[in-house]
């Protein structure tokens, strides 16, 4: 359950709710607050998010090979089950 990556914004309520839900599910994840990055680091991360989610919207949650865009509980559940 360690391969979960959350691309989020520190100010975004949907991101906050999604992280809270993952916490409730008891899973560990790695979170990147993209709005707190700058320069090359920001550019590299945005480029990477684009590969997962061309709209570059948040949260973009990568659970192994599944990508959940936005706070969709059902999709998160499904992706977690698939692990």
């Amino acid at each position, binding site marked *: 359950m360690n391969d979960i990556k959350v691309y989020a*914004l520190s100010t975004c*309520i949907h*991101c*906050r709710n999604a992280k809270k839900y993952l916490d409730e599910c008891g899973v560990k994840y790695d979170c990147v607050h993209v709005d707190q990055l700058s320069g090359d680091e920001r550019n590299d991360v*945005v480029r990477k998010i684009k590969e997962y989610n061309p709209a*570059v*919207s*948040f949260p973009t949650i990568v659970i192994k090979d599944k990508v959940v865009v936005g706070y969709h509980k059902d999709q998160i559940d499904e992706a977690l089950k698939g692990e």
Partner: protein
Amino acid sequence: MDVKQLFNMLKKAQEPKGYYFNNDMDMTMPLLESLLINKERFGYMACPCRLANGDFDADKDIICPCTYREDDVKKYGACFCALYVSKDFNEGKIEKTVVPESRPPEKILF
């Protein structure tokens, strides 16, 4: 300005236009706080749920209320953040869905 003042000010300005704050205050209040954070960070209230460029001209379309609000509220009953919603949304007359991003990704500079 604190969050309560912002709430009152925007409510007064937006409600007559048909845009209401989401009556889920666990959404609305944090979003308003985030708007104040962005005002402090960038000098303007960039959408808290979008990645701002930090440049006024490059972020004009996502300064709250964003240019996408009108269409999103018409279509989904809520804006992308769900800060602003329609009356029907608050009254539970329409299903609450996750509003997809309509800002073209090219607007994000990198």
